[in-house]
C-alpha cells in the first residue's frame, strides 16, 4: 500500500508529492490527462510552435521551492520580463522599464508627479509585501478555535501586523478594503499607468477595477522581489510546463511515482476516513492518505460526495465562488507584431504588452461581462515568449500569448464553437488596432474560453485560480472556514491545490504548505 495518493498532477500536486517523497513517504500521483502540469503546461500545439497554453508568466513560484527541490538541476530557469508597454489609442504609449532612470524619464512625459511618486509607491508596496509575506508560508490558523496551536498562529499573525507601524498598517487596511482604482487614485494621475497597475488586481476574478477588495491583489506583484527575484514577473524557459516538468523530475528523484491517463472517479471513504481512490477504469488503489490537488468543488462535491460530508461544509463549498472570467488566445506568427506607437523590433517586445489604456476602459470591459457577454474591447496581457526564449518557435518565427479578460463562463446562450471564434476575432481585432500587421502575420491560432479551461484542465467554471482571489475566500476562509489548514472533514483526506491558502498562480505554496501540514501531523 502506498503512503499517499495525490489526485491531480498540477504543479501544486507535484510539489506536495515531491516534499512527501523527500520525507520518505511512498507517493503515487494520479493525473487524468496524458501529461502533468494542469494549468502550468507547455504543449506543441502547432508543429514547431510551443505554447505555455494556459498560465504564461511564472515568477510567483516560491524561491524556497526552487532551492529545496533543486529545480534548476531539473531544468527550471525563470527569465526576466523586462518591461510593460501600454499602447494608447492616441498613437502614443506608456512604457514601464526596469531601469529606474529610464522609467522615470518615460513616466515624466506623461506626468512629472507620477514619475516621482512611482518609486515611493514601489517602496511602500514592497514594505507591505514584506510584512504580509510570512502569511504565504503559514498554515492558516483558525480564529474560531481555542486550540493552543491555532492561538499561537493567531498571535504570530497579530505580531506581524502590529510590527507594521501606523503608516503601513493604514495602507494595509486600505489595500484590504479599497478598489484598486481608488487606491491608485491616491497615488497617480496618469490613466494608463493606473489602469495597467490596476489590471493586476482583476486577474482571475469577476470584478472590475472599481470593485472593492481588488486593491489587495496588487500586493502579490511585489511579493517576488523581496526574495531575491528582483523582478515582479518572469517567463519560465520552455513555458510554465517546464515548471511542472522540473517539479515532476524532482518528485521522481525522491522516489515518487507519477501515473498519467489515470482519472480518479471517487475517493474511497469508510467510517469517515479516506481509504484510497477508485479510478474511472474501475481500478481501486488503497493508500494511508489521499491528497487532492483538484479544486474544492471537484474534490468535495465530485470525488468525495455530499453524503460523506457535514451539511455546513457542503454549503460552504457550494457557495465557494469559481466564476471563470478569463480566456486565452495563443498565436503562431510568421513575423513580429509591429506596434504603431513604437515601431520595429525593440526591447519592448521582450516584455509585457498591456491593452489597458484607462480605468474606464477596464471597467467597461467588466460591465459587459457582468451582464453575461465577453468584452467587446477586452483587457489584454500579451507576451511574446519566443522573444524571451527563442526555442519556443522555429528559428525566425514567433509565438504570442494573449491573456484576455473578460470572458465570462456563464455566457448568455452558452459557449459554442461559433462564439469561441467570435471571441477570438474580437481579441485579434482589439490588438490589431495597435499592431496592424498582426492579422497577416498569423499562421495558426488557438482560442481558449473558460468552458475550454474547465473541459481541458478540469478547473470548475474555468476559474484560473481554483476559486476567485477575493478577500472573503482568502487565508483562513480558503476554501471554507475552519478547513483552511489543508485538512478536510474526512480524516486522511487533504487538499493541496490553488483552492487552498495562499491561492492561485504558479506559486507552489499550497502544495508545500499542505505537505508540511501532513508531515506535521505525522501523516
Amino acid at each position, binding site marked *: 500500500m502506498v503512503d499517499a495518493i495525490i489526485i491531480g498532477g498540477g504543479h501544486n500536486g507535484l510539489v506536495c508529492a515531491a516534499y512527501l517523497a523527500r520525507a520518505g513517504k511512498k507517493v503515487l500521483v494520479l493525473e487524468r490527462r496524458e501529461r502533468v502540469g494542469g494549468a502550468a503546461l507547455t504543449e506543441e500545439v502547432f508543429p514547431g510552435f510551443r505554447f505555455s497554453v494556459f498560465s504564461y508568466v511564472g515568477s510567483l513560484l516560491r*524561491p*524556497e521551492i*526552487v*532551492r529545496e527541490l*533543486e529545480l*534548476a*538541476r531539473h531544468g527550471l*530557469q*525563470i*527569465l*526576466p520580463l*523586462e518591461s510593460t508597454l501600454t499602447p494608447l489609442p492616441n498613437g502614443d504609449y506608456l512604457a514601464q522599464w*526596469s*531601469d529606474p532612470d*529610464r522609467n522615470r524619464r518615460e513616466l515624466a512625459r506623461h506626468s512629472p508627479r507620477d514619475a516621482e511618486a512611482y518609486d515611493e509607491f514601489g517602496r511602500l508596496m*514592497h514594505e507591505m509585501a*514584506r510584512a504580509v509575506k510570512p502569511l504565504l508560508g503559514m498554515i492558516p490558523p483558525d480564529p474560531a478555535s481555542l486550540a493552543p496551536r491555532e492561538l499561537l498562529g493567531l498571535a504570530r499573525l497579530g505580531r506581524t501586523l502590529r510590527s507594521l507601524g501606523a503608516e503601513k498598517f493604514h495602507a494595509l487596511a486600505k489595500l484590504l478594503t479599497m478598489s484598486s482604482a481608488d487606491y491608485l487614485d491616491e497615488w497617480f494621475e496618469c490613466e494608463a499607468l493606473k489602469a495597467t497597475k490596476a489590471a493586476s488586481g482583476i486577474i482571475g476574478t469577476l470584478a472590475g477595477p472599481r470593485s472593492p477588495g481588488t486593491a489587495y491583489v496588487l500586493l502579490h506583484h511585489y511579493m517576488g522581489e*523581496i*526574495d*531575491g*527575484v*528582483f523582478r515582479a514577473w518572469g517567463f519560465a*524557459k520552455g513555458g510554465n510546463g517546464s515548471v511542472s516538468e522540473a517539479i515532476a523530475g524532482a518528485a521522481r528523484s525522491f522516489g515518487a511515482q507519477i501515473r498519467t491517463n489515470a482519472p480518479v472517479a471517487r475517493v474511497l471513504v469508510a467510517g469517515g476516513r479516506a481509504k484510497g481512490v477508485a479510478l474511472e477504469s474501475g481500478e481501486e488503489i488503497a493508500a494511508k492518505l489521499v491528497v487532492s490537488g483538484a479544486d474544492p468543488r471537484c474534490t468535495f462535491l465530485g470525488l468525495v460526495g455530499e453524503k460523506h460530508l457535514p451539511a455546513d461544509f457542503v454549503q460552504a463549498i457550494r457557495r465557494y465562488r469559481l466564476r471563470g472570467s478569463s480566456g486565452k488566445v495563443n498565436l503562431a506568427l510568421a513575423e513580429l507584431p509591429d506596434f504603431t506607437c513604437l515601431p520595429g523590433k525593440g526591447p519592448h517586445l*521582450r516584455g509585457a504588452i498591456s491593452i489597458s489604456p484607462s480605468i474606464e476602459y477596464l471597467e467597461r470591459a467588466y460591465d459587459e461581462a457582468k451582464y453575461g457577454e465577453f468584452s467587446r474591447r477586452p483587457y489584454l496581457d500579451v507576451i511574446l515568449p519566443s522573444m524571451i*526564449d*527563442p*526555442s519556443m518557435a522555429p*528559428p*525566425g518565427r514567433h509565438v504570442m500569448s494573449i491573456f484576455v479578460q473578460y470572458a465570462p463562463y456563464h455566457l448568455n446562450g452558452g459557449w459554442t464553437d461559433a462564439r469561441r471564434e467570435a471571441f477570438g476575432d474580437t481579441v485579434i481585432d482589439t490588438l490589431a488596432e495597435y499592431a496592424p500587421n498582426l492579422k497577416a502575420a498569423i499562421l495558426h491560432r488557438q482560442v481558449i474560453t473558460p468552458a475550454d479551461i474547465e473541459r481541458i484542465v478540469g478547473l470548475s467554471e474555468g476559474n484560473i485560480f481554483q476559486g476567485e482571489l477575493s478577500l472573503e475566500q482568502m487565508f483562513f476562509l480558503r476554501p471554507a472556514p475552519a478547513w483552511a489548514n489543508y485538512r478536510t472533514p474526512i480524516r486522511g483526506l487533504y487538499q493541496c491545490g490553488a483552492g487552498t491558502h495562499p491561492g492561485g498562480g504558479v506559486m507552489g505554496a499550497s502544495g508545500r504548505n499542505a505537505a508540511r501540514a501532513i508531515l506535521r501531523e505525522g501523516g
Partner: protein
Amino acid sequence: MLKTTPFHARVAPLCVSHAWRRWAGYLVASSYELSHEREYHAIRSSAALFDVSPLHKYRVHGRDAARLLDRVVTREVTRAAAGQVLYTPWCDGAGKVLDDGTIARLDEQTFRVTSAEPNLRWLQDNALGLEVAIEDVSESIAALSLQGPASHAILRQLGEVELKYYRVGSTTLGGVPVSVSRTGYTGDLGFEIWLDAAHALVVWDALIGAGEPYGITPAGMLALDLARIEAGLMLIDVDYVPANKALIGRQTSSPYELALGWTVNLDKDHFVGRNALAEEAKRGPQWQFVGLELDWDALERLYVEAGLAPRLPSAAWRSSVPVYAGGDQVGYATSGGWSPLLKKYIALAHLRSRWAAPGTVVEMEVTVEHRRRRAAARVVKRPFFDPERKRS
C-alpha cells in the same frame, strides 16, 4: 592608452551602458546593456557571445613542444592526443601555483597555450636545451567565447563543428578558417573560437547573423563572473594570488589547496614543483577550496532583525570575507553572489582542511545595515550548477 580588441568596432556601439573595464591592458565590456541580467540569463538559456581576446596566447611548436609543456605544467601533456585540450595549473619550484590555463594540442608538434598572466619568459626559461619555438600570439589571434545551450546549433549554421568536451578542431565560419575548442568559463555547453585577428569582424558578423534566431546575446564580464562562480571556477588575482606576485609565503597556494589535486600527475617525468608537491601529497593540504551555500533562513533572520528584507548582491563580489566555525576564523571567501538560477547565495572559499568536508556548517560574515554579522553556510560540492549538456 588602453588597447582595444579586434572586435572593438562591433562591440563599442553595442555597449550602451558605457560600462567598460580593463583586462590585461584591453578595454572590454562589463555589461553591454544597463543591467547584466539578460546577458547572464543568455548563458544558461540561449547563447552568450564574449570577446575574450585579451587572454594571453602562445603558440608552442617543435619536436620538443610536448616535452617543454610537460616540464612546466602539472598534468601530463605528452600523453595528450592531437585535438585534445587540457585545463591545468603550473607551479613554481616550491609547488605553488603561478597561473592556470588551457593547453590545446593542435597537432603532434603544435600547441596553443592560454593563460591569464604573461608567461613567455617562464616558458622560454624552461625550454633551455629543447628544440622548441615559443611565439606570443596574444595580439595576432582574436578569441570569442560562445556559451550556452544554443551555442552548438548556432555554430552548425556556419560550419561543421562536432567536438566532444575539451576537444579542439579546425573549421571555417563565414568563410574564415578558425580553430574551435569545446571549452569555456561558464560550466555550460560552449565553444571558444580562435582566429586571425584580421578576420575578426567577419566572424563576429557571421555569428551574430546566424545566432539571431537563437537568441545570441553579446555579454560582458559581469555576466561571466556570475556564471563562473556557479560553475565553481576560480579566478586568478581574485580567488588566489599567483606565486610570483605574492609578497609573503602565506599568500601562495598549491594546486592541492585550490582543489586542483586532480591535475597533479606525480607519476610523469619531472616537472617544476614536483618534489614539493610529492611532499604535500603525503602530508595532505592544509587548506581546501570549496563551495559555500548560505542558509537562506539565517540570512533572512539577520535582515528581519534590522527591520529589512534581505538585500542580495545583484552582481558577483570579489573581496575577502571571513568564514568562521565555533567562533574562530577558519577561512575566507573570495568571490560570491546571488545565483538567479539556483535562487541561492553562493560563494567560493578557502577553508582549513578540517572544516572543508561537504556538509560542514560554518558561518560567513555578512554586513547588514553597516554591522558585521554572521550567517550559517554549508560546505557544498562544486560546481554549484552542472548541466548534463556541458559534457554530452
